[in-house]
């Protein structure tokens, strides 16, 4: 199928883009288009106006800032994937990128667009949750920041208002000694996750000091679950604890069934991957 007709606006600057959004309540942003155009092609969505922000090269950067890295929203996936700064400051994100999309999609798709699309089975939102990322949103009225924990609201839904443009994502650098893990099962490597589990883990001696565990593909959005993290915090960092966290995950998640995996399989995957991803993280707590 072909996309429905739309009005095309090419933004030349960030101000240009937010002005276009403020002007037209029906306007949607067109970043890399790797999810949006696919949905337009099958007419799942028919936006009236598209504001093309691909000319905003000012939003294509990765830099060190305030104890972390700042990634411009229009940075292409492939740039993030191959960034030495990302590997150094946020190794979890670098690892996740081995699972994110295929080369041709990564060449066009953007980091910010991926987060704003908020596909429930997408990896980047889950990584943003456990790394404590912050979204910087800009509108004609000004800028505000939203924590990743408050950003993802549901299937393709975020806290970004219609007139706001995500301009930057800030991710704190990995604290020394923090371990991390990423595991995914998908129909084909590079496709959306049937289930993905990501975590960060900090130890105090042989005890879990803090653990953040997030899931993709098991609910209407990427999510952390309090019972999973409660099963870890203050407990001995061993297989039994990790298994208890896995059992908590099996109960906590709310997966649906689809062509690729039914609910029971997703619960199995969540339990097993939780256990494994925590063991992998523990081995990296150095």
């Amino acid at each position, binding site marked *: 199928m072909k996309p429905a007709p739309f009005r*095309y606006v090419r933004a030349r600057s960030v101000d240009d883009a937010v002005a276009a959004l403020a002007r037209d309540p029906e306007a949607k942003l067109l970043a890399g288009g790797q999810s949006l155009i696919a949905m337009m092609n099958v007419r799942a969505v028919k936006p009236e106006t598209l504001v093309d922000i691909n000319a905003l090269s000012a939003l294509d950067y990765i830099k060190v800032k305030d104890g972390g890295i700042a990634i411009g929203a229009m940075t292409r996936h492939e740039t993030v994937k191959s960034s030495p700064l990302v590997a150094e400051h946020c190794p979890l994100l670098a690892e996740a990128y081995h699972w994110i999309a295929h080369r041709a999609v990564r060449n066009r798709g953007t980091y910010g667009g991926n987060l704003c699309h908020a596909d429930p089975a997408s990896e980047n939102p889950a990584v943003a949750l456990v790394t404590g990322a912050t979204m910087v949103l800009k509108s004609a009225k000004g800028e505000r920041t939203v924590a990743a924990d408050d950003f993802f609201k549901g299937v393709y839904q975020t806290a970004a208002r219609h007139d706001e443009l995500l301009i930057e994502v800030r991710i704190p650098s990995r604290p020394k000694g923090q371990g991390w893990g990423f595991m995914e099962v998908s129909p084909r490597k590079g496709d959306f996750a049937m289930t993905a589990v990501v975590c960060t883990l900090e130890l105090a001696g042989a005890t879990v000091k803090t653990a953040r565990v997030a899931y993709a593909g098991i609910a209407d959005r990427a999510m952390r679950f309090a019972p999973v993290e409660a099963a870890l915090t203050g407990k001995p960092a061993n297989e039994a604890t990790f298994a208890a966290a896995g059992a908590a995950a099996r109960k906590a998640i709310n997966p649906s069934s689809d062509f690729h995996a039914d609910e029971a399989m997703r619960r199995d995957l969540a339990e097993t991957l939780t256990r494994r991803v925590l063991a992998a993280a523990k081995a990296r707590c150095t």
Partner: protein
Amino acid sequence: MSNEKITITVNGKRYDKEVEPRRLLSDFIRDDLRLTGTHVGCEHGVCGSCTVLMNGKSVRSCLTFAVMADGAEIMTIEGLGTAENMHPLQKGFWEKHGLQCGFCTPGMLMTAVELLKEKPRPSVDEIREALSGNLCRCTGYQTIVESIQRGAEIMQGGK
């Protein structure tokens, strides 16, 4: 819903055209330029058949509007080689039977061009990883992997 004027260079030739904003780059290449070597399979970014190079990088032309390629340099399969003067990768596919029906082949080749530019001697794993976004329903991929290895060999000066 007015048309947009765009300038696109395809296989070294410059085109000045007016397109509807919703015109996919894949349809622009096939229907407006009549370069039908680029194949349209799934038309929603899953199969990789429509892969072309945009400013040297592989893109799915069905997930790109032609207006987004304004000012860009596109390379399609027609720019790779001819029947008389095949690209080494095309020779590799010929020698190693890298295709049966041939529908996915243009996308496979354009994907492989990018791979070999970055990794002139890719391992089997690297080839398989690079091809992960391209579906083939005939070959089972084995001969495609061998074809790309052979293409790399020819590019390195092998006979």
